[in-house]
């Protein structure tokens, strides 16, 4: 028997918004420690990794490990039926082929439940090693979202380069070129408004703007975003989800056009 109760159902709504651009369907792996989701997009250049800890839920019970293959489009439809301050409970039997979503209005007047069919998905799971990154950049998520949106007007790909001076986002395209430089900030009242750069070595990598833009769909989840980079490994874009967990996007760097 699996049961997870979340007082803020809006969190799950935001998570779905954050992944449904990249993924059509995904497997939610439920275990005693929490809910994990890992999936690659169709083109296999980016990877979404979602981790929701069991402690983050208001009530969590998972007797046996459970893999729920879910069509994210259908789940979005169901989540749209929930009010923003509804309390949500996800339920499934062991070896079940359906999952039930129960939404309760705050004053318990309205209780609605939706049952959704599960799918059998055959997705390969990748082991992601813990890596020490050369650069770890923390910036306000709204700022990052703005930069990605602005730069994607100019070119299809952008170069993120991190040096002692700060972090630079640059792109070039048909209209011209664009550069945004962010320097480390000191003396800020709130930590989430600060720009914090921890750098061991300078790194410069090229990424597809459209993917970065898809990642910024997670902006409502967290005021701050963390970018981790090392040369020749995928970029990690991480959004913390309150004290429930995190969502991480991995994006492979673009390779320089090879001369044949």
């Amino acid at each position: 028997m699996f049961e997870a109760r979340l007082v803020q159902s809006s969190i799950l709504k935001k998570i779905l918004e954050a992944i449904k651009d990249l993924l059509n369907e995904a497997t939610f792996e439920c275990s005693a420690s929490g809910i994990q989701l890992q999936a690659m997009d169709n083109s296999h250049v980016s990877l979404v990794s979602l981790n929701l800890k069991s402690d983050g839920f208001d009530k969590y019970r998972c007797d046996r490990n459970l893999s729920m293959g879910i069509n994210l489009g259908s789940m979005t439809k169901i989540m749209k039926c929930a009010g923003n301050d509804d309390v949500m409970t996800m339920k499934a039997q062991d070896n079940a082929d359906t999952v039930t979503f129960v939404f309760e209005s705050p004053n318990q007047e309205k209780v609605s439940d939706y049952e959704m069919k599960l799918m059998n998905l055959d997705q390969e799971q990748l082991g992601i090693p813990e890596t020490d990154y050369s650069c770890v950049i923390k910036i306000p998520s709204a700022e990052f979202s703005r930069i990605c949106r602005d730069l994607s007007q100019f070119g299809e790909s952008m170069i993120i380069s991190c040096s002692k001076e700060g972090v630079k986002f640059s792109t070039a395209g048909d209209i011209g070129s664009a550069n945004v430089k962010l320097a480390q900030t000191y003396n800020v009242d709130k930590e989430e408004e600060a720009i914090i750069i921890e750098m061991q070595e300078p790194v410069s990598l090229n990424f597809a703007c459209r993917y970065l833009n898809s990642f910024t769909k997670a902006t409502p989840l967290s005021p701050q975003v963390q970018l981790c980079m090392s040369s020749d490994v995928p970029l990690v874009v991480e959004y913390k989800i309150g004290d429930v967990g995190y969502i991480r996007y991995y994006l492979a760097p673009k390779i320089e056009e090879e001369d044949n």
Partner: protein
Amino acid sequence: MKKKHDTTNKTVPSNTMVFISNEINFSQISKDTPSHLEIIKLRHPRTEKSTNFMYDSDKGTIQEILKFSEMNRSWFIGDTVVSEGNVHLVTPVDPLFLILPYLNKNKMFSTLDQLIHDDEYNDSAKLECLVDEDQLSLISYKKDCSGLIVWKYSEEKTLQWLKTKVIKVANILEQKNINVNSECAVSKTFVRTVKESQENYLRYAHGIISEYLKDEISEKLLVHLNLPSVKSICTKKRKNNELDSEEIKKLRKDYEKDKLNIDVLQANTQTEKTTKKNSKHVALAKAAAGTKNISSFFKKK
């Protein structure tokens, strides 16, 4: 229209064949000058069997040879009897059809001469001078690597190209009022009162085009043309036979309605929803070009 080999000669060589053609001017061919016409063996685009084609090096065209054979027939040519009484019809064929199977087989960008290289059929190299780049672009992606032009098969482009071919053939069939009903034969003088449906024309035209296509492409083309596969129609028919006439009428109405709805739906969804959704996916896939595969960085569990 009827032209033959060597009508002036009194004695006719024993290996004489009779050709009928709209396109080739046989009178230009004389015995002394070497002929620009040549019969070459190539793979048939559908069956891959050895097939004769007529290659015209002057005009750079290729024609297929259709043999009409009948028992007990001979030709009088001049004063001689030629015992081989077959009629060979020579009609032009789009060289892309002959290149398509080679292109389809090769999954990598290659130059044209590499693509059409065939150990068994050396004449396949002649196909190279029959097509220009614009034509090849109709069925493949082109890439120019500093002067070296390479090609790769594009299913999407090919299906689009074949679709226009099918529609053209269907229009001709309709213009010429050719009976396309597979369930009955009709005399040539029969005056049609009910117009044949567009679908039947398309289906018939698809059959004609499919003569030159591998089965798998032919099936994909059927899907691309939004024609339901024949199997589903057959089962429907069989079901209909078991029901009584009233039910059939009802079913047919429903089916017609369904089809209309489906058509409208398909048109709508295809134009709006799928394009909206697909364009997003296509754009995302496009953006992925040039990026490494993420799974190359992580180990599989």
